């Protein structure tokens, strides 16, 4: 099959690292095709193999077995053919503190097509980065944005971003998510790893879960996501007792749990609107004080997927 522009293919990729008690398998063999186009998010607890997978696709970590390709170009040698087609923002926040922001962008975009530096500067200005200042004076978030500006500037078919919004405040995170959405709208394939369910939910059109180097079934992950969107938190004027919980279950709420006046329950998929309306309208319940809907944390999803360990 001929690969289209921006398609990443992974076939049986494996990597084993040497550990204190023999080998530690970071990535188990699995197959995956990403793109062309769209934003794919990889979620998983720490040590699940997300970063190793991204580095292997780029050729930064040589695979133990298996193959990867971008646009049909296989990963060979040191992966130069792949890195020419892929822009990358690493998860580790290490920078050259002695350089100014502009000099750092020049260094990061070296080897790319003409105009890349100008675009990187434009993006950095849009993000409000002080490019004349030395990078050692930048905050954690500013360093992250600098690396992102450099990774979003090159005109390449694929971008790989490892934890692109880690350490950013919510407004900057939203700005980055907008930039990613704009980039994806131009047809770029974006593969990112993240710990923020909200941003992944907002920008990604495909979500993959990894655990212990394995990819979890996508259908299972999709159904968990749908379920996460129906998680509801309701704070009542008085603490909830057993009768309140029974009453809520009678109205159709599932998996009801309480902590004083705070209730957590899942609305049924088919009738979630009607059930929520019925709960709010029911005058036999104590008066509602606060309500949030569809904001299950990533930890909650991890717990459902992986159990309590490895979160």
């Amino acid at each position, binding site marked *: 099959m001929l690969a289209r522009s921006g398609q990443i293919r992974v076939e049986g990729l494996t990597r084993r690292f040497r550990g204190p008690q023999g080998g530690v398998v970071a990535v188990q063999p699995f197959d995956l095709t990403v793109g062309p186009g769209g934003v794919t998010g990889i979620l998983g607890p720490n040590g699940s193999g997300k970063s190793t997978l991204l*580095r292997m696709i780029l050729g930064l*970590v040589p695979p133990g077995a298996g193959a990867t390709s971008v646009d049909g170009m296989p990963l060979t040698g*040191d992966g*130069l053919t792949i*890195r*020419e087609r892929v822009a990358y923002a690493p998860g*580790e926040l290490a920078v050259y503190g*002695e350089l100014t922001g502009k000099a750092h962008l020049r260094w990061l975009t070296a080897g790319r097509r003409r105009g890349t530096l100008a675009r990187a500067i434009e993006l950095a200005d849009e993000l409000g980065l002080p490019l004349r200042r030395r990078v050692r004076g930048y905050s954690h978030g500013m360093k992250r944005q600098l690396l992102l500006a450099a990774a979003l500037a090159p005109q390449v078919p694929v971008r790989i971003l490892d934890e692109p919004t880690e350490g950013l405040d919510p407004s900057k995170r939203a700005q980055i998510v907008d930039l990613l959405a704009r980039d994806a709208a131009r047809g770029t394939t974006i593969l990112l790893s993240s710990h923020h369910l909200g941003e992944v939910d907002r920008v990604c059109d495909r979500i993959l879960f990894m655990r212990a180097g394995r990819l979890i079934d996508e259908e299972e992950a999709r159904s968990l996501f749908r379920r996460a969107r129906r998680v509801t938190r309701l704070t009542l004027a008085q603490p909830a007792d057993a009768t309140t919980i029974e009453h809520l279950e009678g109205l159709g709420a599932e998996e009801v749990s309480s902590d004083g006046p705070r209730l957590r329950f899942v609305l049924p998929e088919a009738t979630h609107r009607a059930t929520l309306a019925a709960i709010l309208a029911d005058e036999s319940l104590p008066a509602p004080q606060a309500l949030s809907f569809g904001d299950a944390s990533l930890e909650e999803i991890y717990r459902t997927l992986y159990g309590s360990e490895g979160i």
Partner: protein
Amino acid sequence: MRSLLLYTLLYTIVMELMLVAAVLYWPDFEQNVDALRLLAPIKSVKDIVQEIEQEGVIPYITSQQFFKGGNTLGTAAAVLFAVGAVAGEAHRGTLELLLARPYSRLRILSERWLFGAVCCCLPVFLTSATIPWMGSWIDEDFDIVPLMLCSVHESLFLLAVYGAAFFCSTIGSNPTRIALVLLFVSTFQFAIYFIEVVTKWSLYRLADLKDFTKIYEDYALDWTVCGPLVAAIVLSFTASYLAFRRRLP
């Protein structure tokens, strides 16, 4: 890179100052060379002084510039300039950024190697080039050609040291530890040069005063010494590349 340039400038200035001091000291040295030979505590030093006594200012200036300045300061510079190349990047966490750019690993490594190598050798040539000019202060004439040939020989020795340190940098992640170990080894090697029974095992025999005097006599490099040095440089670079090709960020 900028810090490396600053260190190179400092290394050049210190070498030049050492050379100025040596040139200005020559008249006193020449006058007291008899006494100095008698005072020399060990045979190796006695031999050097004797050679200067017989041959005059040429062995004096080559021993000062190449054997003393190049072999001590140059070796330290070679080690310090090499260890940061890869291990320094790994230590500060920027190796991943370096490797993720759209350049081949061979190019990344070659650029780093060459830049450090130039920083390591250029001061030797620059300071040696000022010797003929300084000769007028002491009414001595120095031919530039053998001085440049001596600089080539000294640079090959320094590049062999630099190559070994560079290889250690490609396999290690702690530049301070690598530098300390290599500086200890080089100090040990320099020390055993002066011990008669083991002097033949000193690597500093490869950049010995006799080699520089021979260059003056032959007006040519001695390839029986320079050949192995070139081979060591090529070998160390090849080993560095093979290690760097598999290096994880």
